[in-house]
């Protein structure tokens, strides 16, 4: 008896809550119209593919992608990945690629933003030139650098020979040991301007009075940077680093165009490997399983991304 009445009590307490949400949603029904187009596009292009990728990862689908003939294989695709030697090599490449590109791009971009913070003649032009690599197409960048690294007629090899540092032009992207660093140099060339733009924008929000006060108190340039400027930029830095890390983790064009993952997988990273599995070897199931693993990793990163952003939100709300 008491239990039943307790349940009823609970239901009574619950019901107003749900109808409250519904009522609120109904009251705000016009507001949803504003977000609806954005959400609709996102649903079609994101939610549906995520669902489908998960489904495909449990099936073997014939090369021609005839969906009716797919066979359920359980977790076979996943075990096939984790037991293959290529997987660990590609993962290792991806880690190096992502960490090195992100760290160096951020440091160079941040330093460039700091060096360009003080006004001088030609600052605008210099800043504009430094941004150009970020704007031009990665395909164009890949071909420019492919030509620079060319094993017979590349300019870097020629300079090294002219200077007497090498007897013949080195193979930059055709050799297993140098290919990944060479591609990272290209990637940094394209990515550091993004960090520079973000940090430039961030620097403009550092209050001038604080820096002047620190100067009056006798802080030197390094102390002013470390104790005033840098703490103020913590949020921008976090967001920039996360965005860079995600972009690098997801990069495809530079390795794909410059080397296609070779020689002998030395420049394959996850994304190029997945692409090759899917559209090259048409192993749709394994490629989808790879995508799902990637998805899980990215969701973890995404959690930190959202936390960094909602840190901003909270401050915004209290201000």
């Amino acid at each position, binding site marked *: 008896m008491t239990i039943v009445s307790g349940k009823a009590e609970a239901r009574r307490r619950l019901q107003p809550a749900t109808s409250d949400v519904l009522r609120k949603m109904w009251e705000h029904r016009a507001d949803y119209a504003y977000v609806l187009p954005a959400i609709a596009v996102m649903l079609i292009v994101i939610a*549906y593919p995520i669902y489908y990728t998960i489904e495909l990862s449990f099936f073997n689908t014939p090369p021609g992608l005839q969906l009716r003939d797919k066979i359920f294989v359980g977790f076979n695709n996943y075990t096939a990945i984790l037991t293959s030697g290529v997987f660990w090599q590609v993962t290792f490449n991806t880690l190096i690629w992502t960490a090195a590109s992100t760290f160096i791009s951020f440091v160079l971009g941040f330093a460039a933003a700091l060096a360009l913070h003080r006004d001088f003649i030609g600052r605008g032009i210099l800043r504009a*030139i430094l941004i150009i690599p970020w704007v031009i197409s990665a395909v164009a960048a890949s071909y420019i650098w492919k030509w620079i690294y060319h094993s*017979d007629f590349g300019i870097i090899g020629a300079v090294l020979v002219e200077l007497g540092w090498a007897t013949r032009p080195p193979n930059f992207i055709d050799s297993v040991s140098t290919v990944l660093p060479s591609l990272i140099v290209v990637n940094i060339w394209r990515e550091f301007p993004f960090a520079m733009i973000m940090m430039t924008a961030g620097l403009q929000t550092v209050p001038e009075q604080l820096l002047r006060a620190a100067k009056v108190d006798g802080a030197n340039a390094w102390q002013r940077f470390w104790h005033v400027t840098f703490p103020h930029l913590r949020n921008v830095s976090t967001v920039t680093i996360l965005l860079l890390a995600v972009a690098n983790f997801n990069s495809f064009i530079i390795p794909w165009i410059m080397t296609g993952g070779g020689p002998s997988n030395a420049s394959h990273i996850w994304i190029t490997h997945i692409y090759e599995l899917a559209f090259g070897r048409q192993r749709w199931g394994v490629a989808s399983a790879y995508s799902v693993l990637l998805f899980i990793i990215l969701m973890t990163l995404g959690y930190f991304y959202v936390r960094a*952003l909602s840190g901003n939100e909270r401050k915004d709300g209290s201000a």
Partner: protein
Amino acid sequence: MSTVSETISRGQPARRLRIDGWRWGGRAFLVFMLLYTALPMIWMLLTSIKSGFAAMQFPPQWWPDQPTLASYQKLLDPQNSVGQDFLRFFWNSLIVSTATTILSVIVAVPAAYAFSRFTFPGRNFLFFAVLLRNMFPAVIFLVPLFILMRAIGLVNTHGSLVLTYLTFGLPLAIWLLKGFYDNIPVQLEQAARIDGATRFQAFILIVMPLSAPGIIATAIYSFIGAWNEYIYAYTFLSKNEQLTLPVGIQRFFSENTTDFPGLMAASFMMSVPVVVLFLLLQRYFVRALTEGAVKH
């Protein structure tokens, strides 16, 4: 008295020296970055005005002996097949990028406004769901989207590209614009509404003009993203007459593997529109980031 002036005179040169050290370090660093950034682009330009024979020499001609614009003439000549292809790819890229830009502004502006102004249930969830799109690479969505596009008959159309490109630009666009709307006082709109404007009129007449830099930044970002996109175009399009520039250039290269001057000229011309656009409007972009995204 004398001790005070002594300490000042002793202290000052030391401090100036240290600041100068930082300043000279900064200058040296900037010179290094300038070389790193500009030399590859200069080499692209120098190669593009060489003949195919002159480009393939060792040691290279550091400065072209006989500069020629032949590669550019070839690419821009509607009479020969290379020129026809290049101009068509250029036109395709222009159409796809423009359509994407217009649509993303139309979709992002109201969404960002709603996320900034309204407090409907699920607002935060939807906002972060939109932002999370940034996290995922194109490749994850490629297979299912290919199936989807095949099912709705969009494979080999520019529509498939516009639809997918929309979603790249949207997260950052919405985030930037939301920051802008957060900074525009609600009182301005309220005043307009007291004067008899509807919510929509207040939005168009008051909020839109004030957020113009944000909208311009959003538009640039979408345009550049669409112009440079490669992987979807590479997968969804197979007919030669529909290719966009990045894929078209790759095809050009696979057919003429030794024509580096032509390739460099094509890379240069492909970069010109976005670089010019960005340089003209970059102050809006930095301002949008400062006022929109970073200021908190």
